[in-house]
């Protein structure tokens, strides 16, 4: 996405009061306690083990650390992770909003 397109989309999202993740292809994460994590707008699994999971995003990647991680379900847009989640980290997204 070019810088210009992103700006336009951000502006429209604000104008029409739309959820940003719909317009901007950014991930949306819902987390319930430290047990469940629901990620929308992912771009595939890079690594998966019971301690570490890395997901590709439209820009950068998401890193989840924990214990006994299980993918409860996976679809083209969403991933549903369960386990004892300890860390959620984002990589490679610096300077997106400048």
């Amino acid at each position: 996405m070019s810088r210009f397109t992103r700006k336009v989309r951000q502006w429209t999202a604000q104008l029409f009061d739309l959820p940003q993740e719909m317009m901007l292809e950014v991930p949306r994460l819902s987390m319930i306690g430290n047990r469940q994590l629901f990620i929308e707008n992912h771009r595939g699994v890079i690594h998966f083990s019971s301690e570490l999971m890395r997901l590709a995003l439209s820009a950068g990647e998401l890193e989840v650390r924990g214990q006994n991680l299980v993918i409860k379900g996976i679809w083209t847009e969403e991933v549903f992770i369960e386990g004892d989640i300890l860390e959620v980290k984002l990589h490679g997204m610096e300077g997106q909003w400048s």
Partner: protein
Amino acid sequence: MKPPATAKWRGYVRIAVRGKHTEQLINELYTQEISIWDISRLGEDQVSMMLMLPDFFRLRPLLRRTGCRVHVLERYGLPFSLRQLSKRSFFASGLLLFLLGLYMLSSLVWTIEVKGNERIHTEQILEAAKKEGVFPFQWSFRLKKMDEISKEIHAQLPDATWIGVSKQGTKIMIHVVESAVPDSKKLVNPRNLVAKVDAVVTQIIASQGKAVVRPNTRVKKGNVLISGIIGSTDMPRIVPAQGTVKGLVWHEYNISVPFLTKEKTFTGAYKERQYIQLGDRRLQVSGYGGIEFANYEIIEEEEQAGVSRIKLPIKWVHEKIMEVAEVAKERSEDEAVRVGLEQAHADIAAKYGGDSRIVTEKILHQKADNGKVNLKVLFEVEQSIAVEQPIVSAPEDLRQGD
């Protein structure tokens, strides 16, 4: 993640995937819209996941592309249980036989109920139904249509106005509406109506025949009131005479009423006894000791033991023994006369019919002695006085009428 709604029917499996690029396989799977759930890592290069059975057969090209190997860990759902069932042939055939038996038994006609018939015999209706193929232990799929059956049965029963056949499960109900047949007329012989007693005619209505007497005529016992011979003297006809004739009749009554009457009254004192009765034998439970009353009456109540409608030969008997005192009452003469007349009224109504009417009553003689009053009363009663008398010997030239 729960398995999809139809998973139990279509079957699903837990598989183990071994290979270097398991993440790539997962990505491939969901992009191909193969639903997978409960993915967990088993070892360094091994992942387990749940998968629908139809999707399992779409796995092969993807496995080749990513260089993974697969084997099935667990199997769930109907296709697998069916396969297991086919191994136990006796169990499977038993299950099938049971279902078949249940279906067969429920498709039999077990009972036939006939409702609404009073004059037509149930056997007759069942016989007619049997001819139309409706009988117990008949297959219900061999029955004709219900309206057709009711039509056919109706054709066999001319006395029925309507027949309705309905089926409720294994029961066939036959509703019968009987045709109302008017009562056949009583055949009567040619007759006259004659006077029963000596009387003065007050009212005469001839519905058939010829009224011979008029009101206010004095008639003697045996006089013809309504004649059965009608028509002119040249062309007479004989008919059964019908009609009502009322007349005034005198009845004399000798009544004697005592002044003194005895009445029974309960004093209020009572004693209770209770028994258990087994068959014919009674066992007293309470109320021992003799009865101290000189005169008494026993009121008995029984309670039948039983389970729903079945009666057991056990009874609970409750006796109430109530003391009775006789009270003598003295009546006045007027009261005694009133009682005597009342008795006479009741006697007249009973003897001469409910439509009889007392026109006048006259006390001819009244005398009180020996503790009672003697009455001689004359009643003038208006009552039916006609009685039938068959016409036995008709003149030869008389033709029989209707």
